[in-house]
């Protein structure tokens, strides 16, 4: 792969490794959307905070997936914001679910730093932000 010089145009975020990254983000968008839809539709009263956080995570993943797949300058900014929110979210929710477990009677995608998903939700935002820098 060619090295990018200082004046080289930004490389697309959806090619090469980015193609796989978009696929993984897409998978989490699907997982979080399906999970929150089921939770909110069938048992919202059980853990409203957890389920709203699942829905919020779903939106973040959808925005990150679409903006990484598009990869133009505006999408790149949107992706940076979305993935930064994702990073803050997974760490905040991960820590809160450990510290205040009573507030989270049921799990979200980000509970326990994404332990229910092999900690991929914790690693993903770091990889996403690295990739945005790398393709700049």
């Amino acid at each position, binding site marked *: 792969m060619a090295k990018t010089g200082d004046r080289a145009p930004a490389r697309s975020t959806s090619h090469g490794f980015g193609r796989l990254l978009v696929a993984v983000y897409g998978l989490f968008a699907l997982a979080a959307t*399906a999970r929150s839809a089921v939770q909110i539709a069938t048992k919202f009263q059980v853990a409203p905070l957890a389920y709203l956080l699942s829905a919020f995570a779903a939106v973040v993943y959808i925005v990150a997936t679409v903006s990484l797949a598009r990869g133009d300058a505006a999408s790149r900014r949107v992706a940076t914001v979305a993935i930064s929110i994702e990073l803050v979210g997974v760490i905040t929710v991960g820590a809160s679910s450990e510290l205040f477990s009573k507030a989270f009677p049921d799990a979200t995608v980000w509970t326990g730093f994404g332990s229910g998903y092999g900690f991929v939700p914790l690693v993903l935002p770091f990889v996403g932000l690295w990739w945005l820098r790398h393709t700049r």
Partner: protein
Amino acid sequence: MTGPYATAITVVALALAAWAFGLVLANRPLGRPILAGGAVLEALLIGFLIGGIAQLAGSHRHFARAEFVLYLLACVAIPPAAAAWGWGERNRAGTAVLAAAFLIMPVMVIRVQQVWAGVG
């Protein structure tokens, strides 16, 4: 939901994943043979969906039924979606997308079985 059919899906998916990762290492784009292999897996997954819904209809146990059907639908949706997205880049990156899709299929099958058993 458990038993030989689910095991067959897992074995086929892992074999396809190994094959696809081999193609990634060999720097090869997606081609017809691996897509044909994916079609075999897809046929098995459609059977899994139909069988799963039939078993669901015949069961009076209490478990997360909506979640169960969604997981089965996701199993069926993921390989074609990965093939389509991977097809958009005709080099090893596209192949890697399909390889990853094959690799998560055993996890999806386990999740389907867990929901069926009422674990979570």
